[in-house]
Structure formats: structure tokens, C-alpha cells
């Protein structure tokens, strides 16, 4: 029995080596041996991890603190927030800059989470709204000298309007078709940005956007941006949480769970979907305006299909519909490639492999969504 398993694993390793042969030449042999070693030693490693895991779980302060976190949610949030607030003081600017990027993507991912995670509409062209926000500020500044703070609501609203415009013709499509059409819209947006030279200056992009400022203080250093984006992240979390636990959020989730039943409960499905699209798009617009203010330069290269895919990955990897999950997903997907930077060439190779592996091990995401339990004592009394 055990022999059979080893044989099977050897065959797999050999097979994979054979497949790599045309590309790797003689090195394929080494690969085959490496794969064999890894899959043979994996059970051993698993055992080690399990033992390590047990010893970790024996540290009961961990489990008790987990319990404490569950019961003192507000306190936990406060601690988390203060941690986030003092974090950059101990980090260098590269780290802070990466953190700022994380912040932007958290906003984007939470916005997409409204569309994909809560309402269950698969959108693949989400980055178009981000582009709308970024170009909105870039153009408003270069043409009319409208400052960051004024551009912020305008860009957000404009992206929301775009969401509705895009949403209204396509919302009657379902599932994969909706995904494909939004993908098409996303690509069209990018192509238009790249080609409408008169307005967007095409591939040259728009340079010389003003940095945001408060009074005379110009936001310039990564750490300044960090606190600004932290504020936006908190705002986004606040709004999405409130929405999720409101009548509207319930309607969204109901549509995700069962559109027909939701309609039968009196939910205006089209309206609610449009609202979800608009809300999600608005957050992307917010992120976009910030992005323009941070880069002080926008060009179509920042709004490729791959970006949409990355944001979607954050949502799915983190756990669809789960706000903490999505945040963790965004952080992981920004930090992972950065952490792998030392591997240079291999970093995307590892990233791709890790993504596939992660889905196989944990298809429901890092922190799957959980519904809120209600305290019903007072109503009972």
C-alpha cells in the first residue's frame, strides 16, 4: 500500500519533469527529483506543522485572546486601529509606501466586495471606475485647477454615475455573461484612455497633478499619504459595514442568495443591483482620486485588465462578502509580491503557483463571511 503511494508519487514527479523537459532541458531531471522530494516529505512536514500547531494551540493565551476579541469587538477594533495608526512610525518609507498601496487596494477591494461579494454580481472590469476617478481628478486639476478635496466628491460621484450607466444595460445578464460584458467595458475604457489623445494625452498620461494639501501643509511623504489613506480606509470600512447591516445590505445579500426569492419578498432587484454597482464604483472612484493625488501622474498603464483581476482575487482569496477577509486578501496580495521581491524572476512564478494552491486548499477564502448574530434579549423582554 505504502509502496504503491510512493510509486504513484514518483510517477507524478517523473511526469511533471517530462512535461518541463522541452523548456528546461537537462534541468528538468533536477525538477523531477525536487518535486518528488517535496511530495514525499510533505506528509512529514505536515506532521511537523501539526505538532507545531498543537504547541501553538496549547499557548492558551492565544485562544483566550481570540475569545476576548470575539466578545469585545469594539475594543478589538480600537486596538487594531491604534495599531494601524502608530504602525508607520516604526517603518521605513518603502514599507509605508507599500502600506499606502495596501490602503488603496483595500478601498478598491471593499468596493468590489459590495458588487461581487454581497450582491453576487461578477464584475471583471472594475478597474474602469478606478480610472474614472483618477482621470477625473487629473483632468479637473489640469484644466480647472480644482483641488484634491473638491475633486474627491466629484470623482467619487462620477464613478458612481458610470457604475449606473454601465450597470443599467447589462444587469439583466447573469453570471458569466455579466462578467464578460464588464470585462469588455473595462478594456474599452482603457483603450479609449489610451487613444483619446486630445483629452487624456493618450499614453503620455497626465503629469503635474497637484498633491493634496491641508491649508499650507502639502501631503508629500509616504507617511502623510498613509494617514490620508488610513482615513479613507476607515471611512470605507465604516460605510460598507453600515450598508451591509442595513436594509439595503440585506437586500443585496438576498439577491446574491436567490434573486427570484428576493423579488418575491418585494426587493426591487434591478434598483438594488444598480445601487450596488454605483456604490462599488464610487469607492473605486474614491481610490482613483487618491491614486492620482499620490502618483501626481496618471497613465492608462495603471488600469489594465490584470488590475481588475488582482482586485477580484483579493475579494475571492480573502473571502467573498467578508469585510475582514477582503481586507486581509488585499494586504496579502499586495505584500506577497513585495515579500517575494528578493526572488526577482521567480516572484510571479511563485505568486501564480501560490494563488492556484490557495484556491485548492481553501476555496472559500481566508476568512469566509459570517452573518451577524443579533442580541435579542432586549426585544424579548
Amino acid at each position, binding site marked *: 500500500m505504502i509502496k504503491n503511494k510512493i510509486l504513484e508519487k514518483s510517477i507524478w514527479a517523473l511526469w511533471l519533469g517530462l512535461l518541463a523537459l522541452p523548456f528546461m532541458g537537462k534541468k528538468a531531471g533536477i525538477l523531477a527529483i525536487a518535486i518528488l522530494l517535496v511530495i514525499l516529505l510533505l506528509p512529514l512536514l505536515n506532521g511537523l506543522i501539526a505538532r507545531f500547531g498543537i504547541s501553538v494551540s496549547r499557548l492558551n493565551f492565544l485562544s483566550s485572546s481570540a475569545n476576548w476579541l470575539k466578545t469585545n469587538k469594539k475594543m478589538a477594533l480600537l486596538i487594531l486601529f491604534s495599531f494601524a495608526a502608530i504602525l508607520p512610525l516604526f517603518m521605513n518609507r518603502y514599507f509605508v509606501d507599500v502600506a499606502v498601496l495596501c490602503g488603496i487596494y483595500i478601498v478598491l477591494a471593499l468596493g468590489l466586495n459590495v458588487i461581487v461579494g454581497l450582491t453576487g454580481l461578477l464584475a471583471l472590469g472594475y478597474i474602469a471606475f478606478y480610472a474614472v476617478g483618477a482621470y477625473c481628478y487629473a483632468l479637473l486639476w489640469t484644466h480647472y485647477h480644482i483641488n484634491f478635496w473638491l475633486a474627491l466628491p466629484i470623482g467619487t460621484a462620477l464613478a458612481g454615475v458610470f457604475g449606473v450607466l454601465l450597470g443599467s444595460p447589462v444587469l439583466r445578464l447573469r453570471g458569466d455573461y455579466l462578467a464578460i460584458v464588464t470585462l469588455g467595458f473595462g478594456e474599452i475604457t482603457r483603450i479609449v484612455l489610451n487613444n483619446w489623445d486630445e483629452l487624456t494625452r493618450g499614453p503620455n498620461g497626465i503629469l503635474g497633478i497637484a498633491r493634496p494639501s491641508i491649508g499650507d501643509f502639502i501631503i508629500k511623504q509616504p507617511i502623510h499619504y498613509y494617514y490620508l489613506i488610513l482615513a479613507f480606509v476607515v471611512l470605507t470600512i465604516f*460605510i460598507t459595514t453600515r450598508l451591509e447591516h442595513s*436594509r*439595503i445590505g440585506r437586500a443585496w*445579500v438576498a439577491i446574491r*442568495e436567490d434573486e427570484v426569492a428576493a423579488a418575491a419578498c418585494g*426587493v426591487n432587484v434591478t434598483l438594488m443591483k444598480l445601487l450596488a454597482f454605483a456604490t462599488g464604483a464610487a469607492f473605486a472612484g474614491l481610490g482613483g482620486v487618491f491614486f492620482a493625488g499620490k502618483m501626481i501622474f496618471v497613465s492608462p498603464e495603471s488600469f489594465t485588465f490584470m488590475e481588475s483581476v488582482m482586485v477580484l482575487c483579493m475579494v475571492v482569496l480573502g473571502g467573498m462578502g467578508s469585510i475582514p477577509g477582503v481586507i486581509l486578501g488585499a494586504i496579502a496580495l499586495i505584500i506577497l509580491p513585495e515579500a517575494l521581491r528578493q526572488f526577482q524572476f521567480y516572484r510571479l512564478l511563485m505568486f501564480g503557483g501560490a494563488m492556484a494552491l490557495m484556491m485548492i486548499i481553501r476555496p472559500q477564502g481566508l476568512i469566509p463571511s459570517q*452573518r451577524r448574530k*443579533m442580541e*435579542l434579549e432586549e426585544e424579548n423582554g
Partner: protein
Amino acid sequence: MMLEVKSVSKSFGGLKALDAIDLSIHNKKIVGLIGPNGAGKTTLFNCITGMNPPTTGRIIFKGSIDLVGKRPDEIARLGMARTFQNIRLFSDMTALENVMVGRHCRSKTGLVGAIIRSKATVIEEMKIVKKGVELLKFVELMDYANELAKNLPYGLQRRLEIARALATEPVLLFLDEPAAGMNPQEIFDLMQLIRMIRDRGITVILIEHHMKVVMGICEMIVVLNYGIKIAEGSADEIKNNPKVIEAYLGKEE
């Protein structure tokens, strides 16, 4: 007169699923809709509740409102609710939340209200929870309020679906095979529940295969076969109607 169905027909492709159905439903009654599989019962429900509008014919609600062409959510708001043959709960929401979704069309908090959580919103939300709790108690599901709908036992899921439908404050309630898959005790409880719903002033129309249920609680029974109404009347009348017996047991050689 609560609801009048006037020569409603529905075809799918070439197949006539409903053929010129006429039906009148009176206030505060329990009406049974029976017939063999594929007789067109659920199709009729779908026509009335706007899920799948009829090909021809009119459906008049409360004597004046024509339902044909209205969206399901509009119809729900007018006061009609339904359950589904193959239970369509929001499975990843808690039982209480399921019922709260039912309150959607009776509340009106908007985007801004939800975000700033104004006083009106808080009050409305409290009312929604209160109503939800009241309905969960009504269907005796209070112990499961925080359970995810998908984790409830089958029979309770059926009851939850009824509670959710009731949350929309209907005057007319459509139940599609509410007793399917239930054990005798559950069926007995269900019959009690349906009577209680009727006593709240709600007219109930149900599709059911459990004849015990239909014969036991329905004040009026309508029989469909091959998309045609073949009989209408009280339980006893139906039981002895040769057309009905033939439809169910088949013709003898």
C-alpha cells in the same frame, strides 16, 4: 373579491401549460390548488406573482388592479407573498435576517440613511427586528433566530419561508407544496399554522400533494389537469368527482 384570474393562458414554446384558466378567490379563505404533476399549478402561481407573466388573460387584484405586466416586487408590495416548491431561502443568512428581508418592501431607509444611521433609520431597524422576532415566534422558530437558514432542519425551513412571506404583510399568501417532505407531526403543526394565518385575516392559496392537508384545511379546492381547470368545490365534492379520481389514479381499462 380578492383575486380574479380571467382566462389566463401560458405557453412555453408550443406547449400550453395553462389553458384559459378562470378563478375567483374570496377573502379570508384557504384555497387548495391540486392536480397531478405537470398540471400547471406552479405555472399558475408564477403567472399571478409576476415571476412568469401569462401569455394571455388578465389577473385582477382587489377588484381594480391588473397584475399582468407588473414586476414581482411590485406585486409583493401590493400585498401578495409566496413560498416556493423547492424552498428558496437565503441560505447564507440567519433565520431572523431572512424574515427581515421580507420587511424590505415595508421599509424605506435609503443609502444615506443607512450610512449615517439617522434616528429614523434606527427606529425603522428596530421595528424590522421587532416584527421579525414576532413572526419567528409566530412560526415557533425563535430558538433558531441566529441560525443560518441552510442549517435548519427541512421542516423548519418550510416554516421560515412562510414567516418570511408573512413579513411582507400580505393579504394573499401563496404556498407551494408547504408540506412536502414533512413528517406527520410536522404536517399536523403546519395545518395549525395555516389556519392561524387565515385567522390573521390573510387569504391562503396552497398547492399541495398531501391530500390530508388539502382535504383537512381547504375551504375550497381547485383541480387542474393538463393546464385546464377540471373541478372546483369543497373537499367532499372533489373527493367524489370522477374526473378528479381519473386524473389522479388514471383511467381503468
